[in-house]
C-alpha cells in the first residue's frame, strides 16, 4: 500500500507537521490536518496567512521544508522529479489556480478539451457541455469565443470546468470565485456541492469569503500566521 494510491480511503489528504519558509520568513509553521472523502473543505485566513501556500503544497507545486503530505494514503515524494505527483494529478486531481491561466487565443472549448488531450484523456463532449452549462457558459457564441474576450468571472468559470473535466477524485481550488460576484459565488458552490454529492469527489478550496459559501462546505480550516486556529 506504501507505493500505491488507495482511492477507497476516507482520508483523502493527510498533512503532518508541514513547515515552509520563504527567505527566512515562516509561512507555514507545523500544519497538521486531514481532509475527508466526499467533502468540501474551505481554507480561510487573512492575506499572507499561508492558506494558498498550504494548498500549493497539496497540489505538488510547492515543496515543504519539513513534514509529510499523504494523498490517497500515498506519501508524496517531492524530490523524485515529481513524476509520481504528476501521474496522480494527471488522472485524479483537478487544479484551479488563483487566476484562470487560460490560453487567451484559444476558444472556451479548446481551453477545456486541450487540457484533457494533453493528458491523453479523450474529451467527453456531453459531459463538458453539461459542466459549462452548470457554470453558465453554455451559449454557442461563448463556446467558440477566444478566452481572452471573456470577463474575469467567466474566465474563472471556464478554469473551474477545465479542472473538473477530467472527473477528478480530488479538486484543489485556489480562490475559484475571486472574480465572481456574491450571487455567482453562491451559485458556483451550490453546483460544486451537487457534484460532490453525486460523484463523491473531494474539494479543498481556499477562500476569502467563507460566509458566502458556508452553507455548501463541510469543514472550515482557518490559518493565521502560518498556524491553524
Amino acid at each position, binding site marked *: 500500500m506504501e507505493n500505491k494510491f488507495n482511492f477507497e480511503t476516507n482520508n483523502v489528504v493527510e498533512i503532518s507537521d508541514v513547515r515552509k519558509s520563504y527567505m527566512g520568513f515562516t509561512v507555514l509553521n507545523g500544519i497538521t490536518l486531514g481532509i475527508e472523502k466526499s467533502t468540501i473543505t474551505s481554507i480561510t485566513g487573512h492575506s499572507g496567512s499561508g492558506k494558498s501556500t498550504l494548498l500549493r503544497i497539496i497540489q505538488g507545486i510547492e515543496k515543504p521544508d519539513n513534514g509529510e503530505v499523504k494523498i490517497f494514503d500515498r506519501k508524496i515524494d517531492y524530490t523524485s522529479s515529481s513524476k509520481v505527483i504528476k501521474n496522480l*494529478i494527471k488522472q485524479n486531481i483537478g487544479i484551479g489556480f488563483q487566476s484562470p*491561466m487560460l490560453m487567451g*487565443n484559444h476558444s472556451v472549448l479548446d481551453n477545456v478539451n*486541450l*487540457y484533457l488531450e494533453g493528458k491523453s484523456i479523450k474529451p467527453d463532449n456531453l459531459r463538458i457541455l453539461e459542466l459549462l452549462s452548470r457554470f453558465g457558459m453554455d451559449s454557442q457564441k461563448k463556446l467558440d469565443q477566444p478566452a481572452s474576450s471573456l470577463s474575469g468571472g467567466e474566465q474563472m468559470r471556464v478554469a473551474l470546468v477545465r479542472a473538473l473535466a477530467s472527473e477528478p477524485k480530488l479538486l484543489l481550488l485556489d480562490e475559484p470565485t475571486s472574480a465572481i460576484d456574491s450571487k455567482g459565488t453562491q451559485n458556483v458552490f451550490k453546483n460544486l456541492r451537487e457534484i460532490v454529492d453525486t460523484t463523491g469527489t473531494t474539494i479543498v478550496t481556499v477562500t476569502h469569503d467563507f460566509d458566502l459559501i458556508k452553507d455548501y462546505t463541510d469543514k472550515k480550516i482557518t490559518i493565521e500566521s502560518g498556524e491553524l486556529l
Partner: protein
Amino acid sequence: MNEINDNSKDINKPILNELSLSIEAERRKSNRERLAIGLSMAIGSAAIAGVILTGDASHFEITKSMPFIPLAQQSINSLDGYLAKFGEISFPTVLGGIGLTKIFANKNSKLDFIDKISSKEMISDSARKESRTKKILQKCFAGKIAILAAIGVALASFSVSVGNEVSNGPERPIVALMKEIPGNTLITESSQAQPMLDGQLSSSLINRIEMDAKEKGINAIPFTKNLGEITLSDGKTYNTLEFGFEPNRTSKIYWRVSEGCNNIPVYVDRSARIPVNGNINIDGVNANVVGEINGYSAIGREGVEMSDQAMKDCIEKDINAPDYAIVLDSSAKEAQQILDESNINHEAATVITKNQYLNNSLKFWEGNVKPITNTMALFSALFAFVAMGASMAGRLVRNKRELAAMSASGIKNNVIRASEILRAAKDSVIATISGCSISLLTPFIVNSIEAGFRAGIGLEELAVGAAVGTIGCIGGVIKPLIRIKKNIDVSENTRVS
C-alpha cells in the same frame, strides 16, 4: 486624522533621518556618474565629427592578414552542397511529419493537443478578430509567418544563387565559344590556362601546328583573346571578353567582311540592351550591331561576336603576333603528337581538353568567390537560428504562466516540448515557402543592376534555403526546450503576480 497622529508616535525619526541622508548621497553619486558619462559621450561625439570633417578618417579601415587555411576553404566551399542535400531531405520530411501529425491527430488525443497548441499563439496582444488568411495559416501551419526566419531563408538562397553565378558565370561565354569551335583538344601555354589568365603561343608555333594538322587531315583553329571595351554612342562603356577565331562557315556567327572596316557587323549579347542597328565602338573600331546573341556574357563583361578575319582587317592584328591557343579536332594523343613535332623551339605549350580549360576557370572562381558567398549563407543560417531561438525564448517568457499551468495540471513536459517543436517545424515550413518565394524574385533585381549577371534560383538554391529554415527554426527552439524546467518555473509562474 487622530489615528494617523497616533501612528506617527511610533516613527523612529533618527533612523528616517539617516535613511534620508543615505538616499540623498546615493542620488548625488548617481548624478555625478550620469554627468561623467554624458560628458564622455559629448567629447566622443565631437572627436568623431572632427575626424570625419577633417578627412583624417578617409583611410580608416580595419583589416587583418590571416594565414590561409585550406581546410577551412574546402569546408566552407562544400557547405552549400551539404546544406542543399540536407534541405532536400529536411523540407519534405518536416512537411510530411506535420502532415502525419494532422492525419493521426484525429485518432490520438495527445497528437490532437500537440497539433492544436502549435497552430496558434496561446496569448496575443493583437486584434481579436482573426483574418481569413490567419485562419488558413492556423489550419495548415502555426498561424503566422516567421518573418525573421523567412528573411534568413531568402538570404541564404540568394547568397548561394549569387555564389553560383559568380563561380559559374564566367564559364558561360567560354562554353559558348567552345561550342562554336570544332574539336575537344586545346594547345595552350599552360595546363592552368583559363580566361582570366593571359597566355600566348608564338605565331611560328601556331603556323607549324596548323600545317602539321592539315597534313593529318585534322581541323585546327587558332584563337586570340582580349579584354577590351565597348563604347556606345552616348559614351557609356562596357568591358568585353573578346575571342577571335576563324569559324566554320556554317556557324551562325559567320559574316562577310565589310569594306574599309568602318562599320564592322557584330552581334552583341542581349544583356547589354544595345538595339540592333545601333552603332558602337569596340577598342577604337566603329561597329554596327546587326543582331543579338544570348548567353555569351559574364559578370560585367558583354559578349561580342566577330570573325577572326574581321579582327585581322578591322583591329589590324599583326600576323606575327602570338595567339592565345589553338583548338584541334583530334584526340589528346594526336594533339600531343602534333605539338611534339611542331614545337621545335621548345616553347611553353601543353595539351589540355576543353573541359580542363573550363574547369580551370571554375576552380579559379570557386576558390576566390565561393568561400565568401558560402560564408554569407552560413551567416544567414546563424541569423535564422539566433532569431528563431530568441523568438522561441520570447514566446516561452510570454506564455510561461499558461505553460506552467499546463505542467502543474499534469501535462508532461515532453508533450509541451513536442508541441513547441511542431510549432517550430510549422514555422520552418512557412518560413521556407515565404523565404524561397522572396528569393525567386531576387534574380529579377540583381540581374538588372549588373550587366551580364545571370543569377538564378534553382532546386539547389531553394534546398539551401529550406535547410536554413529547418536548422534556424527547429535548431533555435532546442536550447530553450532542453532547459524547459528552468524557463518555466511551475512554482514561480503559477503564483498570482
